[in-house]
């Protein structure tokens, strides 16, 4: 592991944030973090202090609560983080747009698509959708399509399956 990456991981562990390693070849990122909303801002501050940039902020509609996905990466080395944070019961989550100014638009967009309230966001008005569509929330799933968060977690591919499929095709 790159020394700077090691430093970042240990800094996160000091904040008692659990960091899990991922196989980059399979997943496309190096570390994943499941976080509670109250630690989001300290994580963002730590990321900025360790010279990471914010790739994107996006939403994911799952049960029991909508999850906000943050991706951080580095300009200097191959080091990519995915952070998932479930929103609070009142559909709110703290903003990080004062730490990473680039999050401003991403959060407005997520508000457009999911109706999540980013508390203390300076300007939480529709960005991509029209003003009259403020309650449209187009990316919310219908009840029958909605899945549990745990169902969508990465499961390492089972070796037997592809062979069985091959046999069927052959």
């Amino acid at each position, binding site marked *: 592991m790159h020394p700077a990456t090691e430093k970042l991981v240990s800094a996160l562990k000091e904040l008692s944030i659990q960091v899990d390693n991922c196989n980059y070849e399979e*997943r496309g990122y190096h570390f994943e973090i499941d976080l509670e909303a109250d630690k989001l801002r300290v994580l963002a501050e730590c990321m900025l202090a360790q010279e990471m940039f914010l790739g994107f902020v996006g939403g994911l509609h799952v049960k029991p609560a909508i999850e906000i996905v943050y991706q951080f990466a580095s300009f200097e080395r191959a080091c990519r983080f995915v952070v998932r944070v479930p929103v609070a019961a009142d559909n709110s989550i703290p903003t990080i747009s004062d730490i990473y100014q*680039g999050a401003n638009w991403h959060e407005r967009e997520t508000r457009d698509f999911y109706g999540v309230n980013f508390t203390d966001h300076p300007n939480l008005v*529709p960005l*991509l959708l029209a003003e009259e569509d403020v309650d449209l929330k187009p990316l919310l799933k219908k009840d029958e399509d909605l899945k549990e968060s745990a169902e969508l977690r990465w499961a390492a*591919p089972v070796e037997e399956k592809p062979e069985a499929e091959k046999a069927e095709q052959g």
Partner: protein
Amino acid sequence: MGNLVGDNAVHVDLEPVTDIPNDNHFYLNMGPQHPSTHGVLRVLLEMDGEYVVEAQPVLGYGHRMQEKMAEHKNWMAFMPNTGRMDYAAALPYNHGYVALFERLCGIEVPARAEYIRVITSELNRIVSHHLWIGAMLLDMGAFTPILYTFDDREQVLDILEDVTGSRLTYCYFRVGGVCKDIDDKFIEKTRAFIKRQRERFTIYNDLITGNIIFIKRTEGVGIISPDMARRYGITGPVLRGSGIAYDVRKNEPYSVYPNFDFEIPVGQNGDSYDRYMVRLLEIEQSLRIIEQALDQLPEGPFLGKAPKKMKMPTGDCSFTVEAARGELTYYLVSGGGDIPYRLKIRVPSYSNLSVLPELCQSMLLSDLVAAMGSMDLVIPEIDR
């Protein structure tokens, strides 16, 4: 206010115009149909005379809800949509999308296909930079350069048309390879183009690089510091103009890019002129990649075996490529089956443009055109 014409210092030493009472301010809508916003982008400007107090981009005029469409059809049926976001360089968008599914499902790609992908993607990057150089100079009132860059662009579009079947919104890559092999004619024409393009750089340099008006309009205009770039998530040539050598092709190498010897051009000051220089030098680096790829081009199939009906495993997967404007990330969450549960598309111009309000404070309106032009915005990519 002193001498406003032809003096670089004027951009830096400006008195903060916000001190002037607000009743002198007025609002100006730049766009949505303004020629230098390159698409339907509106910038709401609070002005004090010719100076910008605040610039607020207003987005969404071309919003098509691509991410919603991705959740509603078979993943292969979304493929043509990938070429319709960044229309000026669609192939890297194709590349990221197919590579995402190859990663998720563990599909092998034949070596020849990877080489073809790199060659055509780099040709597309060159085309995109041609378009940008012409349009940027046109924004600033120089009509001639676009005639030269479009002449060159035309050569590449003809080459790409032969193999992909289209000239702009390509849908050429497939999971497991590409849909059509390249032939000797393609290789011959590409080599001829490389030779021709290298000769054309002299014209570019005579016409633009050393042009005193161009230098005066861009040097010191719209300076983005590395810190600013980090806070806004700026990537691509805009970031490299600020001296940070971040390129996904080197940083997180994908496809066969590690097989090639190329450099990442960077600027020093982070101004509009540096961003121009970075893109101009990138054309040469792309030519180098294509040249090496043609030399090494392996024989073999151009499309590997991929199951017709492909089911995705459960979980999330991310794939990042270097598009012509910066870092493009597809982030997929799959719940099994063949329709994505969620597809987040992180487009480079979106983050690049979000810096505009901070970048353009106390700037002359004419400089704003130069600064915004130097970002190489493609609005359908931002609006998605």
